[in-house]
């Protein structure tokens, strides 16, 4: 019983990070019909920029406390990623807005390689240990079930950001314009909406969430690396598809479900496979889910429309 509860806690923590990243995929897909495969690499840039900023702060402003240092590093990384997201949209995708759909998709993969290569040139190929500014010492929440301050922070921050995003999209003028643009660019422009600005805003918001998720990943696992965006990116994409791509609630649900399946499944995979696989194989769950969803319910758990965008 404790094991299961522990796996649920771990699953929710990982799942909420997947959810934050999945939101970026799903918002961009909703508005442009584009799978932004570079999104995972924005997360990587977020983590590495935060790492660099925190290192510099620790050298030049050692008097700053742990939490302020972390917040400063996080803020810098969020700003850098927002600029990066805007730049990617502006330079790589905007000119392909009316191109056949394969063109932006291939471009997205190109941007992904480009970001990884640049990060590799700057930060090298090794794993960097990420400064542990919050405690990772497990606390016993209920007997037998442990959670670290980092994990608690991840849960609280992700939940807050998700609520904020839902409010933004559903209750504000910008959000209304985003939804209108997602449904019909031309008619939105007839309402006086500068759709290019709305699309840019979508990339900027998604990238900010990715930066936060990147810092969370690195804080949770204690490392950062130029290729660290690949797996979370692919899993968050799976989460977005699982929830119904284009659907915000779906991305959140998909992220949490994927996190739980991975964590719980990882706990039993050894028994299930008669000892053939151990828990380090838990990544396969994401891809099994992706395959199953695409075959049996391509619209995802909450999605209805997938193919209605030209």
């Amino acid at each position: 019983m404790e094991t299961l509860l522990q796996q649920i806690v771990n699953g929710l923590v990982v799942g909420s990070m997947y959810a934050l990243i999945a939101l970026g995929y799903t918002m961009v897909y909703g508005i442009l019909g584009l799978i932004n495969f570079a999104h995972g690499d924005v997360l990587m840039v977020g983590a590495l920029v935060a790492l660099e900023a925190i290192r510099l702060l620790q050298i030049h402003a050692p008097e700053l406390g742990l939490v302020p240092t972390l917040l400063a590093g996080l803020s810098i990384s969020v700003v850098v990623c927002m600029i990066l997201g805007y730049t990617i949209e502006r330079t790589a995708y905007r000119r392909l807005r009316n191109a056949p759909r394969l063109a932006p998709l291939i471009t997205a993969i190109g941007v992904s390689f480009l970001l990884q290569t640049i990060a590799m040139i700057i930060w090298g190929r090794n794993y960097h240990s990420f400064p542990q500014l919050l405690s990772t010492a497990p606390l016993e929440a209920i007997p037998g079930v442990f959670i670290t301050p980092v994990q608690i922070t991840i849960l609280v921050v992700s939940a807050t950001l998700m609520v904020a995003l839902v409010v933004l999209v559903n209750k504000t003028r910008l959000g209304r314009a985003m939804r209108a643009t997602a449904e019909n660019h031309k008619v939105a422009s007839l309402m006086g909406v500068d759709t290019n600005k709305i699309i840019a805003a979508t990339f900027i918001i998604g990238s900010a969430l990715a930066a936060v998720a990147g810092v969370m990943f690195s804080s949770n696992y204690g490392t950062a690396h130029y290729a660290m965006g690949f797996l979370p990116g692919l899993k968050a994409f799976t989460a977005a598809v699982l929830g119904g791509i284009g659907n915000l609630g779906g991305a959140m649900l998909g992220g949490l479900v994927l996190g739980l399946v991975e964590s719980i499944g990882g706990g039993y995979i050894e028994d299930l496979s008669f000892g053939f696989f151990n828990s380090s194989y838990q990544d396969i769950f994401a891809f099994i889910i992706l395959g199953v969803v695409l075959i049996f319910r391509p619209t995802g758990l909450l999605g209805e429309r997938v193919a209605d965008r030209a």
Partner: protein
Amino acid sequence: MSATPLLQLRDLRVAYGAIEAVKGISLELAHGELVSLIGANGAGKTTTLNAIAGILPTAGGELLYEGKGIETLPAHLRLRRGLALVPEGRGIFTRLTVEENLRMGAYCRRDEDGVEADLERVFTMLPRVKERLQQVAGTLSGGEQQMVAIGRALLSRPRLLLLDEPSMGLAPLVVEKIFEVIRSVAAEGVTILLVEQNANLALEFSQRAYVMESGRITLAGTGAELLADPKVRAAYLGE
């Protein structure tokens, strides 16, 4: 008002790739006029309106609004100058609520009190809309959607309102209601360019009209003149 027409098309051309759909048309609307543009399916009416509103690029000729060329002005900036289009098929945001659709019409306005007042005016004109404010717009009937589309355009406080077949697919009673609304909008001084399939209705309704055929304007005159024209009667009034 000034003598400069509000809208002027001079030899305007619009093409889809290599295919020219509007082959050099000239027309003008004075301030406060209600003018219609009629013609058979595929004549190029929608293409013309979309080019005026800026969601299609022009391929030649001039497009003057308040005396200034707006050929390269993006659609969203044309709206800000008072040029609104109710597109063919209504262009309702089906996943937004009725209220959100209406508020999209006021997207560029900062005068919140004015917007609230205009919303009330739309409600008096279109009482059916008020009852359905929180309904997702995709679930409205065709007539209700058309009313929302017109109300939405009015919320931008247009000076020139382009209407693309507002009667399409609607029952006669609903059409009557919608034309009543258009008439009251015109009475407030809004200049209107109305595209209609229903030539009889349009000609009776408007001060002047243009007849379009395969991308060209072939006839122009007052509504009454065109209604009496044997060619028009034969081609568009089924006689």
